[in-house]
């Protein structure tokens, strides 16, 4: 399985998917077609857990601004992670700037909805 990197654009985050067990999203998320944009990432993660998950997986999410369909997609994303949480060691860091109240609240929402996941709020 190969690593996958999607470079940052004006409206989309940088996505780094590393078979060594690193999944990272950094930037803004205002894609024109959110679900289409994230399809390669979702597919990669599905394959990763199915075929060759690392001993430990670390997910770093640092999303500064995002639209509502991105927030829906992040719920789907965490659903997928949760399905694999029983058989894998997964740490999730939701990283945000202290002054970014929206990002903090989104992180709290995810923690509330995904009790089985180990989501940590990390301020920069």
């Amino acid at each position: 399985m190969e690593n996958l990197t999607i470079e940052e654009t004006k409206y989309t985050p940088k996505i780094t998917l590393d078979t060594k067990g690193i999944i990272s999203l950094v930037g803004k998320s205002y894609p024109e077609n959110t679900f289409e944009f994230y399809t390669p990432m979702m597919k990669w993660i599905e394959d990763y857990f199915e075929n060759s998950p690392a001993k430990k997986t670390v997910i770093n999410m640092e999303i500064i601004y995002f639209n509502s369909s991105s927030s829906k997609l992040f719920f789907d994303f965490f659903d997928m992670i949760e399905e694999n949480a029983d058989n894998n060691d997964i740490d999730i860091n939701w990283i945000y700037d202290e002054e970014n109240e929206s990002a903090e609240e989104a992180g709290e929402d995810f923690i509330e909805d995904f009790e089985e996941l180990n989501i940590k709020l990390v301020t920069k």
Partner: protein
Amino acid sequence: MLESHENKLISEIEDLQKDFVKITDKFVKEITRQDKIMSRSDKRQQKEYDELMALKIEIEETQKEIIFTMGAVGESRSKETGNHVKRVAEYSYILAKDYGLDLAECEMLKQASPMHDIGKIAIPDSILNKPARFTPEEFEVMKKHAQLGYDMLKHSQRPLLKTASIVAYEHHEKWDGTGYPNGLSRDEIHIYGRITALADVFDALGSDRVYKEAWDDEKIFKLFRDERGKHFDPKLIDIFFENLDEFLMIRDRLKDI
């Protein structure tokens, strides 16, 4: 036999119930999630809107401050101006409003008109503050302030500064084409230029200057009537006389001390 048939039906229904509960649970979860996403999103959008509006105000205020500061720079070069630019601003507003410009434009002209003489900062002190009539050569130098002011402001794409550049450029043009710097006539002269021309002259004539004393009102009114359709846009002269009381009140309220 009958009993077991019943039992089977019950167990099937119970299975259905379980499935139904599972599915409805999933629906409830999805709907709850969707609601949360929507309300968070609304809240974020409102915040972003607030931020945008704050930025818009910040930009507008910055433009006003630039204009005001440049006006103050201009005034500091020349001792006699005093409240001149403030009065010209107020007069311009009345003329613009009754001419039929929309209120946002009137407000912009009011803020930009204090810049009409900004080009004078490039005129030597010896000419600018000369306590006597200019020689023809000195007058030629003095006249350059219109072009100079325009050159200072013309590069800006900001509406307020663009308005200021028009005012600086055209406030010495005359209705009949005998003004400067370009000898434009009638509506070749931008309405901002025509308005500021009248406001500027009315104020200049009614004020003491180093080279002259203030004219009395009757003399000013006579000149305005004579220059209707010559120096000044006739429609603006009519508006001036229709609103004379208001002009005199402004002059009194903002008089030089």
